[in-house]
């Protein structure tokens, strides 16, 4: 059974958790902590809300020079 992380352990991993870049075991440990800790859960939800709001607007800003080319070549090689 997964041992829940402490508040500090969750805080240290919050950015990677938001980016879905943790291992399945770490995700389970963060999930278990967020189930029980209202403060950490609120921090996580707040960050996720802000991230989603910003991401919705990313499509509207100019793409940096040469990123279009990189993405096009990635699509071709996929």
């Amino acid at each position, binding site marked *: 059974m997964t041992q829940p992380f402490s508040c500090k352990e969750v*805080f240290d991993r*919050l*950015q*990677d958790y938001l*980016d*879905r*870049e943790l291992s399945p075991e770490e995700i389970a440990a963060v999930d278990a902590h967020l189930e029980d800790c209202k403060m950490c859960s*609120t*921090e996580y*939800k*707040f*960050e996720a*809300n*802000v*991230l989603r*709001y*910003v*991401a919705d*607007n*990313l*499509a*509207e*800003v*100019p*793409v*940096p*020079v040469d*990123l279009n080319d*990189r*993405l096009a070549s*990635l699509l071709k090689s996929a």
Partner: protein
Amino acid sequence: MDLLQDAVLLAYKAIDSFQPDSNFRAWFLRILTNRFYRVSQQNKRHQTESLDDAPDLYLYDQAARLGHSMDGDNPAAAILEKIDQETVRDAIDRLSDDYRTVAIMHYLTAMPYEDIAESLDIPIGTVRSRLHRARKQLQVSLWQLAVDRGLIPEEINS
């Protein structure tokens, strides 16, 4: 735009508030002085709040300081509803190309760190740190722009 031009523009926009029988020079100097203090405060804030000094959960901390309600599934709603889309786009525009590139690759195309690292030919740790710093930079810029534009009060109203 320099301070004088800025003050002339503000005076032009506020000309209806000028009383014809009062002293135009004093009225304009008051606008210029107010603008000077405002710009000084903004510059001071930009200097003192470097990215490294800013807390990781920058907007959360500011919202908590202002006493915003943070209940429910969208605890950021009270602050985000005050920040219009133009301000969000301006904050994104303030990101350097390096930060904006990884942000677009990760959040728009859902590419994992590893694929971004391979595509840009940089270490995966660099992708991680650029994304984390981009996120913090965005939060600091969002807050500063929203305060400067009067969308959010800088301090708690007493």
